[in-house]
């Protein structure tokens, strides 16, 4: 469904599998939907200079990110015949193996949901003012670069 104004996409810490299940379950009443596409970002235990990442600490320019997400959403609804789109991004600490990004699109037939999900993920990575800081076991950190 389209939105009239920006919604807050940010949630504290990790996105839980139970939250994802609840979000999926809510779509059971939308019986025009035939396909869901979901992307989940998970925090990797990368090893950098012999130190292992134990989590990522996310910060964001929240107002601007929510506004930009609203614009991305409008573009995607314009471009693809999708029924709904949901996006959640973590703020604060997310441990390795936990989920930090949840993008969920649905449509009557599969192609639009799949394409819309992929394009939304790419745009989120490029356009949302969000920063991740990789935290090591000794609490030192480095700002995430690869994206």
């Amino acid at each position, binding site marked *: 469904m389209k939105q009239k104004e920006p919604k807050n996409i940010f949630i504290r810490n990790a996105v839980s599998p139970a939250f994802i299940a609840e979000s999926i379950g809510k779509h059971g009443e939308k019986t025009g939907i035939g396909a869901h596409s979901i992307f989940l970002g998970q925090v990797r235990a990368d090893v950098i200079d012999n130190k292992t990442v134990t989590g990522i600490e996310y*910060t964001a320019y929240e*107002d*601007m990110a929510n506004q930009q997400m609203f614009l991305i959403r409008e573009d995607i609804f314009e471009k693809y015949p999708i029924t709904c789109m949901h996006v959640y*991004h973590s703020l604060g600490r997310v441990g390795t193996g936990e989920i930090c990004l949840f993008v969920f699109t649905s449509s009557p037939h599969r192609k639009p949901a799949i394409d819309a999900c992929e394009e939304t993920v790419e745009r989120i990575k490029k356009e*949302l*003012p*969000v*920063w*991740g800081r990789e935290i090591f076991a000794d609490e030192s950190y480095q700002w995430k*670069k690869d994206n």
Partner: protein
Amino acid sequence: MSINVLIFGHLADITGKDSLQLRDFHDTDQLIDHLNNLFPSMKKARYACAVDQKIIRTNTQLREDSTVALLPPFSGG
């Protein structure tokens, strides 16, 4: 004239602050020159600049209560 400056990511490490209140800067070039003097490592830093949540590409006039945000390359998701 009061200007709000928001500082994100590794720029906040460089400046030691995540926001500043400044006065009497009329455009973004002036403001950035000032910050470069205060924090010389900012000269080498890669970042974009947003005025009132819009990313700007060229020098931009500031107004009373404008919010200038300094945005290092995004790394969300």
